[in-house]
C-alpha cells in the first residue's frame, strides 16, 4: 500500500503529460472524425526538438513553443497528403509517421537517445521532483498547463473558425454546402492536434530526462485509451466541450494510475502494450456490439409482430 502511495504522484504526473497528447488525439479522432497515426512520430519529434534545443542552451519555454510549431508542420504534411493528394487519412498519417522517424534521428544527431540532465538545465518538469511538496513538483505545473490549454481550446472551438472545424468533422457535406472549406479545416485540425502531441512529447522527454526515438511507439493507442476512459466514466455527466476535454485528461491520469497498479500486482512490463491494445479494442467495439444486439432484438420483435 505504501509503495502504491509512493508511486502515485509519478503516475499522476505522467498521466497529466499524456493527457495533453490525448487532447490532441481527441481533436482528430472525435472532432474531425479522422484516425491520425502521425502522432506516434510527432510525439517523438516534439521530445527530440525540445531536448536538443534545451541542450543548446535555449530557454525550455521557448523550446516548448518551437516543439509545438514543429508538431504543427508534421500535421500540415499529413493534411496535405490527405486532402491535396487524395491519400486516405490513415495511410497519410502512417507515411508522415515513417518519415518522421528519419527526421527525428536527424534532429537527435543520429543518436537513438539524447539525455538532458535536470542538474544542468532548468527543465520545466522532472521525475526527480515528483515526491516533494514544492512548486517544482511536476504535478502543479502540469495542472496549470492543462487548465490553460483546456480554456484556450474551449475558446477556440467556440469561435467561427473552431465551429467550422467541428462542422467539417460532424458532416463535411453540410459544411461545404454552408461555404466551409473542409480541406483547409481538416489541415488546420491536424496541425493543432499534432502541435499538442509534440508539446506532450516535449514535456515527457523533460520529465524522463531524455528524448528517445522510440518514445512515441503506440502513442495513438494510449491517447485513444485516455479518450475512451474519459468518455466511459464521464460521458453521461460531462456534456459541455470543456468538460469533455477535462474528462480526456482525467482519462489519461486514470490510465497511468491503473497501469501502475497492475505493474505492482506483478504484470510483466513487456506485456503492457498488448494489454492496452486489448482494452482499447474492447471499448471501441462496445458501441458496435450494442447496436448489433439492439438490432437483433428489434428484428425479433418485428418478426413476432408479423407472425
Amino acid at each position, binding site marked *: 500500500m505504501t509503495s502504491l502511495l509512493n508511486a502515485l504522484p509519478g503516475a499522476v504526473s505522467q498521466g497529466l503529460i499524456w493527457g495533453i497528447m490525448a487532447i490532441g488525439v481527441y481533436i482528430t479522432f472525435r472532432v474531425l472524425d479522422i484516425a491520425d497515426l502521425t502522432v506516434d512520430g510527432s510525439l517523438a519529434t516534439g521530445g527530440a526538438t525540445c531536448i536538443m534545443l534545451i541542450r543548446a542552451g535555449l530557454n525550455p519555454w521557448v523550446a516548448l513553443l518551437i516543439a509545438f510549431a514543429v508538431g504543427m508542420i508534421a500535421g500540415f504534411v499529413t493534411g496535405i497528403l490527405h486532402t491535396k493528394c487524395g491519400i486516405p487519412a490513415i495511410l497519410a498519417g502512417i507515411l508522415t509517421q515513417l518519415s518522421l522517424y528519419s527526421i527525428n534521428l536527424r534532429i537527435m544527431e543520429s543518436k537513438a537517445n539524447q539525455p538532458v540532465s535536470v542538474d544542468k538545465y532548468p527543465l520545466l518538469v522532472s521525475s526527480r521532483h515528483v515526491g516533494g511538496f514544492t512548486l517544482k513538483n511536476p504535478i502543479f505545473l502540469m495542472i496549470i498547463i492543462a487548465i490553460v490549454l483546456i480554456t484556450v481550446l474551449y475558446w477556440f472551438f467556440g*469561435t*467561427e473558425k473552431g*465551429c*467550422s472545424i467541428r462542422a467539417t468533422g*460532424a458532416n463535411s457535406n453540410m459544411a461545404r*454546402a454552408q461555404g466551409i*472549406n473542409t480541406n483547409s479545416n481538416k489541415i488546420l485540425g491536424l496541425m493543432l492536434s499534432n502541435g499538442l502531441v509534440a508539446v506532450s512529447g516535449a514535456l515527457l522527454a523533460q520529465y524522463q530526462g531524455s528524448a528517445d526515438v522510440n518514445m512515441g511507439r503506440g502513442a495513438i493507442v494510449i491517447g485513444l485509451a485516455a479518450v475512451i476512459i474519459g468518455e466511459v466514466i464521464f460521458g453521461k455527466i460531462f456534456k459541455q466541450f470543456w468538460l469533455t476535454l477535462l474528462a480526456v485528461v482525467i482519462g489519461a491520469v486514470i490510465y497511468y494510475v491503473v497501469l501502475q497498479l497492475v505493474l505492482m500486482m506483478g504484470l510483466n512490463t513487456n506485456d503492457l502494450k498488448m494489454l492496452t491494445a486489448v482494452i482499447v479494442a474492447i471499448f471501441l467495439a462496445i458501441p458496435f456490439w450494442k447496436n448489433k444486439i439492439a438490432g437483433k432484438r428489434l428484428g425479433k420483435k418485428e418478426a413476432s409482430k408479423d407472425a
Partner: protein
Amino acid sequence: MLELINVNKTFNVGTANEKKALDNLSLTLNDEDFVTVIGGNGAGKSTMLNAIAGTFRIDSGSIILDGMNITSLPEHKRAAFLGRVFQDPQMGTAPSMMIEENMALAARRGQRRGLSWGISEAERTQYYELLKSFDLGLEDRMTTKVGILSGGQRQALTLLMATIKKPKFLLLDEHTAALDPKTAAKVLALSEEIVTREKLTTLMITHNMKDAIRYGNRLVMMDEGRIVLDISGEAKKKLTVAELLAKFSEASGHDETSDKMLLS
C-alpha cells in the same frame, strides 16, 4: 440569371458502370423563376442540381451565373449564393452540434470565418423568433443537438438554414420525399412561403405530379440527362396530371404504364 450551357457529365468512365448522367444539358433560369423538376429515377435531376452546386466537376460545358463563369469554382465558394436542401434529412445538418450552432454556421455562409465568437446573443434572439415563426416547437430547444431531431424537423431546419442568409438560388432535391404526408405538406408550404416572400430563384425536384403542377411558375421534365419538356406561365397552370404523363411518354418515347410507375 443562371445558365447551364451544353453540360455533360459521365460517371465511372471506362468501367462497366459507365453512365452518362447529363447529356448536353442546357437550361436558363431567369431571376425569380420557381421551377419544378420531374423525371423518372436516374433521369439526372439530382446530378443537374449537384452540377450547379459544384459537388463534382462537369466533363464539358459551362455554368454561368449573372454573367460570371463559375464552372470551375469549388463547391464551398459557390455556397455563397446557393441554399440547398437534400433528399436525405441526414445530409443538411451537423448532428453533433446544437440547433443554434447549425443556424449560426448557415448564417455565415459566404463570409470569412475568423476568431470572433461563433454565435452572438443578438443572433440567439433572432433565431428564437425565426424558429417560432416556423411553428415546429423548436424555439425552446435551441441548445438541443440536431442528431436527436426527427427527419421532418431536420428538413425544416435545413430549409431554414438554406434561406437564413438570402441565397441567389435555392436548390431543393426531393426535400420532402422522406417525410410523412402531413409533415411533407407542412415543409412544402413553408418552402413556398419563403420562396415567395424572399423572391428566391428556385429549382425544386419532386416525384409528385400534383405538387409539380401546383407549385412554381415553370415546370421542366428530364429524361436520360436531357430536358425533354419545359412549360411555363399560363400553359403550366392549365396542366393536369394525365396530360403530364402523356407528355412524358411522348417526349421520352417510353411506354406510358412504366412511366406511371416511375413518376406517381
